[in-house]
């Protein structure tokens, strides 16, 4: 037989969890109390209907007494409301009022912020003792409520003259002393409540701390948005600003309207990094929620920033983040639609600015374009690539290269790789960024006349066959020394020899040496051996191939020299060692020692009369 039981609550424990662990920062306590004060003012405005009512919030700090006082001239609370809402966790009047107004007066409902009935608890993040003095606009006596952070509170009549509204006095804990320092308090208010429409004053200063008007409600939205973006980007003007508006999302069976305010912007440039994010600052009903929301913008829009206010987004209970629910998805889709449209429109309307945008964020744009055909078409001819001659667009590059993309996938490749490309009078494209090679491939796939040549590992494609016979003595010399030598014609003609290795050659060599030296554990030698066998059994020679340049005047002259002359041997040694040094291969200490020894000997021979 089963019976239904009721959970019991351990109130002190729950209070501790909610007050101390729900929020990540004590500063949030200030936000919650300001928001309560604001909601109280909105409620009075709605319910009292007094056209002369002027809401305000006043802060007062007394470092000597360690108190922070937050006073609003809002609706105040009756004794019943204190019991029902202030002293009941998880139940708030604001949420109920919003639901009541949702249909009759949605504009007024949208001004209300509170939702969960938890915010007041955050006072205990900041204070060990909290005193509330309140008088309701509905009449009744002024009341005093006091709590020391445990499950008990005291309530009774307040003494003296009390105006309509609520005063919350916090006896600040040492750990929250920052709120007693004016500068920190001002910063906290400006972070969380800058856009609240209710003015917030500090210590009687006639100027409110908060600006109250969000940039998207300014008369000149474009200018306000630019000023905001410039501030956020360290003073540089954004390349593009896109004001946002309410959007429609098609759900298939229905269409919903997503209320949205704010703007997106694109800074002048981005750092080359896979860690670049499209960050959004998010407000809900003008209350700051977070400033690094990364999932609302589409993944490709990592170069975009923005600030939005969207009342349908659902904050987490701590209101420091957002629930990723259906509404979140609708907002995400709305943003993607508007951003996509805005960028397409920019490309059409202002091609020069669009070009600057693409160039400023080239790496991020390239990685997006690889995945999105439509976007690829828009950027393919204007996005610049790093080349050995500086940034070039692909049409500019193709004019120089005669219809072939020469690229290196290692960071900038070896000097020799670049030299080979330059030898054909073309720059080499730096394709070390992961999206560049697929971008080039996609570009080439759309035009059959474009060829792709990867210089690192495939540099042979830049060589032209040449007859070996005129150079037989040189070839014989090198082969006699165990060097695999061939003749080819390549540019620049001033480059007499070059050394080419197939990809992975260095690793093969190292693995082979390790095996020979017994430097691999016995159980693993089989795999290492399999690797070496497989890599060395093919047509490629992993010791490298020395190519003599048949077009080079020096090589031609050497070919005509006496085959066994000492000077010739010295010169050939110098050429070979030079080629090894420039081929971009890591030299071991033994390699380097050998190179210098042979070079020194060769030079000494050449210096002999």
């Amino acid at each position, binding site marked *: 037989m089963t019976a239904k039981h009721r959970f019991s609550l351990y109130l002190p424990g729950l209070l501790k969890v909610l007050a101390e662990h729900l929020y990540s920062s004590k500063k949030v306590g200030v936000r919650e109390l300001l928001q309560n004060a604001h909601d109280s003012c909105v409620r009075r405005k709605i319910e009292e209907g007094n056209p002369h009512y002027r809401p305000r919030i006043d802060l007062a700090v007394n470092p000597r007494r360690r108190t922070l006082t937050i006073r609003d001239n809002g609706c105040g609370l009756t004794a019943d409301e204190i019991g029902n809402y202030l002293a009941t966790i998880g139940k708030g009047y604001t949420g109920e009022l919003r639901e009541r107004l949702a249909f009759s007066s949605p504009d007024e409902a949208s001004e209300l912020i509170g939702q969960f009935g938890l915010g007041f608890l955050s006072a205990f993040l900041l204070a060990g003792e909290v005193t509330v003095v309140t008088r309701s606009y509905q009449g009744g006596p002024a009341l005093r409520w006091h709590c020391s952070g445990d499950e008990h509170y005291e309530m009774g009549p307040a003494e003296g003259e009390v105006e309509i509204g609520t005063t919350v006095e916090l006896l600040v804990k040492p750990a929250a002393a920052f709120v007693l320092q004016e500068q920190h308090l001002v910063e906290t208010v400006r972070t969380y409540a800058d856009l609240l429409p209710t003015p917030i004053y500090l210590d009687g200063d006639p100027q409110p701390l908060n600006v109250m008007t969000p940039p998207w409600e300014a008369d000149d939205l474009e200018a306000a948005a630019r000023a905001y973006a410039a501030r956020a980007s360290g003073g540089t003007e954004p390349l593009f600003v896109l004001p946002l508006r309410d959007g429609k999302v098609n759900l298939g069976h229905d269409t919903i309207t997503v209320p949205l305010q704010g703007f997106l912007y694109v800074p002048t440039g981005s750092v080359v990094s896979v860690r670049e994010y499209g960050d959004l600052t998010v407000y809900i009903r003008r209350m700051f929620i977070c400033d690094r929301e990364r999932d609302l913008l589409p993944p490709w829009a990592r170069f975009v920033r923005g600030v939005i206010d969207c009342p349908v987004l659902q904050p987490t209970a701590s209101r420091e983040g957002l629930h990723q629910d259906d509404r979140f998805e609708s907002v995400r889709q709305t943003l993607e639609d508007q951003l996509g449209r805005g960028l397409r429109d920019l490309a059409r309307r202002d091609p020069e600015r669009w070009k600057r945008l693409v160039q400023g964020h080239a790496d991020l744009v390239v990685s997006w374009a690889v995945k999105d055909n439509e976007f690829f078409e828009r950027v393919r001819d204007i996005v610049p690539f790093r080349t050995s001659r500086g940034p070039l667009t692909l049409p500019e590059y193709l004019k120089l290269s005669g219809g072939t993309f020469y690229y290196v996938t290692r960071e900038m490749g070896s000097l020799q790789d670049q030299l080979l490309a330059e030898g054909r009078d073309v720059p080499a494209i730096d394709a070390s960024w992961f*999206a560049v090679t697929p971008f080039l491939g996609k570009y080439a796939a759309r035009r059959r006349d474009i060829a792709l040549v990867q210089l690192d590992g495939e540099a042979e494609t830049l060589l032209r066959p040449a007859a070996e016979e005129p150079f037989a003595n040189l070839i014989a010399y090198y082969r006699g020394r165990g060097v695999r030598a061939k003749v080819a014609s390549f540019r620049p003609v001033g480059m007499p020899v070059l050394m080419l290795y197939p990809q992975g050659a260095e*690793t093969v060599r*190292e693995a082979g040496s390790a095996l020979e030296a017994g430097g*691999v*554990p016995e*159980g693993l030698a089989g*795999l290492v051996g399999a690797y070496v066998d497989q890599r060395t059994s093919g047509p490629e020679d992993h010791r490298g191939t020395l190519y003599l340049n048949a077009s080079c005047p020096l090589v031609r002259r050497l070919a005509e020299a006496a085959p066994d002359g000492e000077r010739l041997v010295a010169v050939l040694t110098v050429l070979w060692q030079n080629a090894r040094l420039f081929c971009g291969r890591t030299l071991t200490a033994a390699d380097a020692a050998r190179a210098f020894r042979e070079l020194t000997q060769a030079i000494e021979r050449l210096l002999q009369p």
Partner: protein
Amino acid sequence: MKMRDWLASQAQEIRRRNDRQRLQMLQCYLEAYEARESDPDRAYAAFTQGRQMAERLNDPWWVLFYRKEQVDALLHFKRDYRHVLDLAMQCAMEVRKPANARYPGRIGVWDSLIAAYLGIDAEGYAQPIQQALNYLESEVPPEPDGDRYLLLARKRIFAREREQLQEAYNVCMTEMNLGAADTDQERALHFATFTCCEMCLIAGAAQQWQTLGQWAAAAEERARHVGHQCELSEALAWRSVAALQARDVENARRCYRTATATADRLQMPPKQGYYEALALYHEMQGDVENALGVRDAELEALANHGRLLYECRVRIKRCVLLARLGRLQALVLNAARETAQKLAQPAKYLQQLDQLAAGAGR
């Protein structure tokens, strides 16, 4: 010191010193892991960037760490084996140097090399792989630990690739027992997700439908818990097969739809078990055309990615389906032969293809 402890202590020290450059370097790992299923290219790029940062910081263990992560990204995130051996061997050569004698990820480096050969041609390299597994068996402590889980996973895949399903099953059970004894249950669940998926593959091949349903449910539960979307899609695909076998057609369709929708959202290519389940789902209904469609998609995802044995087997499965449809052509057979020729021991597969060709010619 274990790799996990080394990473934790490094992260703690970097944060304590507020070393911004190394914090950025550390961030690359987190970024990569986060993107592994949704954008494996980006994950690989993040590991590359981490390695470049480590090189700039002249931090050889971190260089080795990130290079090994690059290998793992190619193997497990991108499933692209074309150039992985060079990179895996680079790591293997590096880790044996005296300066790295105490590097805590030493076993992991060798594990990745074995994983690379397993994915390329487990039959062709069976002997050196077996020797390497024996070596690691002597090196890796028996208690629950990342290295032990990885070793068992390699043994399991080795058995499966050689079509020794009983042996693969035994290893799976050892893995599950290891997980049960693990005090770190999050880690155990992470590894158990893969084991359960493997169990599905084994049960599917053995046509043990009831067992399949149980393992598929277990795989789904674990995949959801640890958040592995790729394995979730695989588990759901197997659930669709089990449900179809149990004549729960509606549930089977729902699982199939969810499986494919989940996989379609990812850029990480699905694993063999996923395609195996989808093809089986169609074949059980006599729908050869759609089974062929599954194999086409599988081939498209893996062709020319250096996974020689797997590619060869998929090509043969396609040939079988095409033969059943009466559409097997010389061109397809030749492509399969060409792939088989790349194997170290192609005879068995060439013979199968000859038989198919003979059947098609009759």
